[in-house]
């Protein structure tokens, strides 16, 4: 047995492809760190200091991610539940809320438990319906009971929007992880999660690098002045090519499917990014918090994932599991 096969055989949920891509990921991070340190000496400046800070935080994120993937589906459900909690807390601290909203906000945090419990039990219908339907119907009722009607519309809308972005959408990453091996013999749930995370995050990085290197024409000047057409198109190209390379190792997709999904995820990641930028601009803050040095808050890091995760999930689900 090769090294990859030995490692993969030691964990039921990990395939050779997943282990191989993980090793590739760490080599990539190591290379980025090396380049960052060389540039620090040859071209010192503010930009490279900031980039190296971002790379350092990536080590921590990649470390957590690797550990969770190694531990398996239960760890992923708990981990994503925690990420949802942190993202939701940042969202609710950002948007305007009223004293009368406190009970409804508390219920929203409770929705995290329901959502991730449904995933852990593989209750697909509850997972699908709880936040978009049941909580949508009953959440505003908690505000009605409280009785304050001034800004009622604003509160009930923002509270539910936060739940959709930070909990419902992100929870699809966890559900992807618990899907059985038979729909995806190449990597099972972990293979699809790894595919989704790599494409989403590297798309962010690719858009940033293309934009920094060749960016001239602003794509959304009033919302996000750093976003350019060059970055967007560069990201689309890089991500769709990368998708075609890693898809056969991690998923059962054909090359054409991989190209299409790569293109979609790249576009969606961009949309998630600028939508959250608009929220922050409205609230007149730069980052949703300062938890991750160089990256901002958790919400800043997962805004694109919140848009890519559900779309990737339903594509995989209906193609290979329905």
């Amino acid at each position, binding site marked *: 047995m090769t090294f990859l096969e030995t490692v993969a055989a030691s964990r039921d949920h990990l395939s050779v492809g997943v282990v191989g891509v993980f090793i590739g990921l760490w080599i990539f991070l190591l290379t980025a760190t090396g380049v960052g340190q060389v540039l620090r000496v040859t071209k010192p400046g503010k930009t490279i200091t900031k980039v190296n800070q971002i790379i350092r935080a990536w080590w921590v994120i990649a470390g957590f991610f690797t550990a969770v993937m190694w531990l398996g589906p239960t760890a992923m459900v708990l981990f994503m539940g925690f990420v949802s*909690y*942190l993202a939701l*807390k*940042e969202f*609710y*601290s950002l948007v*305007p*809320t*009223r*004293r009368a909203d*406190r*009970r409804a*906000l*508390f219920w929203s*945090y409770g929705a995290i438990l329901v959502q991730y419990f449904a995933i852990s039990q593989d209750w697909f219908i509850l997972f699908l319906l709880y936040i978009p339907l049941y909580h949508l119907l009953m959440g505003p009722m908690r505000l009605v009971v409280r009785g304050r009607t001034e800004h009622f519309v604003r509160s009930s809308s923002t509270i539910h929007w936060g739940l959709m972005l930070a909990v419902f959408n992100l929870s699809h990453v966890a559900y992807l992880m618990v899907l059985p091996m038979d729909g995806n013999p190449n990597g099972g749930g972990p293979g699809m999660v790894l595919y989704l995370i790599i494409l989403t995050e590297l798309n962010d990085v690719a858009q940033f690098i293309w934009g920094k290197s060749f960016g001239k024409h602003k794509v959304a000047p009033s919302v996000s002045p750093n976003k350019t057409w060059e970055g967007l198109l560069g990201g689309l190209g890089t991500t769709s090519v990368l998708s075609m390379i890693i898809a056969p190792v991690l998923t059962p997709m054909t090359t054409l499917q991989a190209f299409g999904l790569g293109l979609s995820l790249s576009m969606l990641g961009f949309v998630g990014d600028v939508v959250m930028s608009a929220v922050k601009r409205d609230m*007149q803050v730069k980052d949703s*918090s*300062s*938890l991750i040095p160089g990256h901002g808050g958790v919400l800043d890091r997962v805004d694109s994932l919140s848009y890519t995760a559900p779309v990737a999930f339903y594509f995989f689900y209906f193609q290979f599991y329905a």
Partner: protein
Amino acid sequence: MSDAPVPRPPLHTPLGWLRWLFFAVVIRPLVYVVLGLNVRGHEHLPEKGPALVVANHNSHLDTLVLMSLLSHQSLHLLRATAAADYFMKPGWLRWATLNLVGILPIQRKPGPGGERRPVEEVLAPIHAALEQGLIVIFFPEGTRGEPEKLQRFKSGLGHLCASHPEVPVVPIYMHGLGKALPRGDNLLVPHFLDIVVGEPRRFAGEPRTFVETVQDAITEMESDLGVEPWD
């Protein structure tokens, strides 16, 4: 003043380690995970004593937030002033606040005969702590008062600083605890706190004018933050 009792818990004892563990396992996760801090001016925080940390006061959690804000390595140097009439009633709360939180009890209320206590006597535990090189958290409003409203600072801060002109005074403005846990409500709803740490300053001029400059500094931090009225 130098024969004042050593503030509890003493340094480097099992009780001190228990306190370190209590903050690491209970308080810091509460402050950083259940709540969450957005801090401006982190570089102004004192790392070693003696120092006086002066902040606005809205909630009992203020003390725990400030103690978690400073480096965990300097926890053994940290003491926070607290009202003796509130916390020093016999029982487990007294033991916990003295030994686990590490408060300096201050006698705000008149003595048994109803006589006003001289200010030097009231502040004696703080003088002693500063002389021993500790970092003391002090709330110059003297009470929690109305939620999210800054009250006029009492004169105690001026007396204190006049006796220790070499001790840096670090002004801090905190906002948001009233949203996470308003007074009179016992449901804690997770919410970020905004904290502004101002530049350290040292005593100069008259006690009363110095109190006013510190109060002005904190008021300015409040308006810089652009706190919106909450209702």
